[in-house]
């Protein structure tokens, strides 16, 4: 199955893209998708403990399972205001 990965702020800079299409195994968790990304872009690994994540624009957890067509977002620590 295929998901769309959204990356923001410095995570986007590291990966060089704001949006990536990724094939994953059925039943994959967000954490598994993240670890694959961190292997692909090693600089991301430092964010493992400080990122937040969302599925289809709702906050989610790293153990949330994704479905085909989902939009999975990885969010570095926020700085709005």
């Amino acid at each position, binding site marked *: 199955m295929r998901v769309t990965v*959204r990356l*923001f*702020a*410095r995570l986007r*800079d590291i990966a060089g893209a704001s949006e990536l299409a990724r094939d994953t195994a059925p039943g994959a968790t967000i954490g598994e998708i993240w670890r694959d990304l961190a292997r692909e872009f090693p600089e991301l690994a430092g964010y493992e403990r*400080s*990122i*937040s994540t*969302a599925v289809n*624009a*709702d*906050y989610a957890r790293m153990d949330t399972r994704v479905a085909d067509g989902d939009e999975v*977002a990885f*969010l*570095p*620590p*926020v*700085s*709005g*205001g």
Partner: protein
Amino acid sequence: MLQRAAQPERRYTGQVTPLFAIGSAPLEVDRIAAALADAASGSAASDGAVLTFLGLVRNHNVGRRVRYLEYEAYEPLAVKAFERIAREIEARWPDARLALHHRVGRLEIGEASIAIVVRSPHRGNAYAACRYAIERVKQIAPVWKREFFEGGDVWIEGATANPDDERARAEAERLACA
């Protein structure tokens, strides 16, 4: 395009000013306040306080001379975060109501990046709810600022966004009521 057109209007550049929005146009606090008054039409006559807060881009940060900022947001989730903050305020200060717009894109020194408007029958709850709103934005809204200063640029990274972190929420409430 049809699917997008069916989405609720969230951007304050549209004809209707929503209570919660992200956009690149300059913030118009009077329009936001008017939208909140309209939304409160049933109870507006009982409100005795309207509080507005503008967050501005300043020319210094931790010893750096700031030239300008660039903001970005995960827009649909940011609007949901603003709506969540409004529900939290409704639970804590039931007579206070919130409107909140955040700007994205390049902002120059002195421009407003965020506008918060709160209405309440009395000023005390309006001040508390307004302070709570800005503290919660900094905790849970998926918005980021990149600071361009004299000598370089850096993404500012603050809180790990976790709306279910009750300790963070309680800290925002403590600051609001200090």
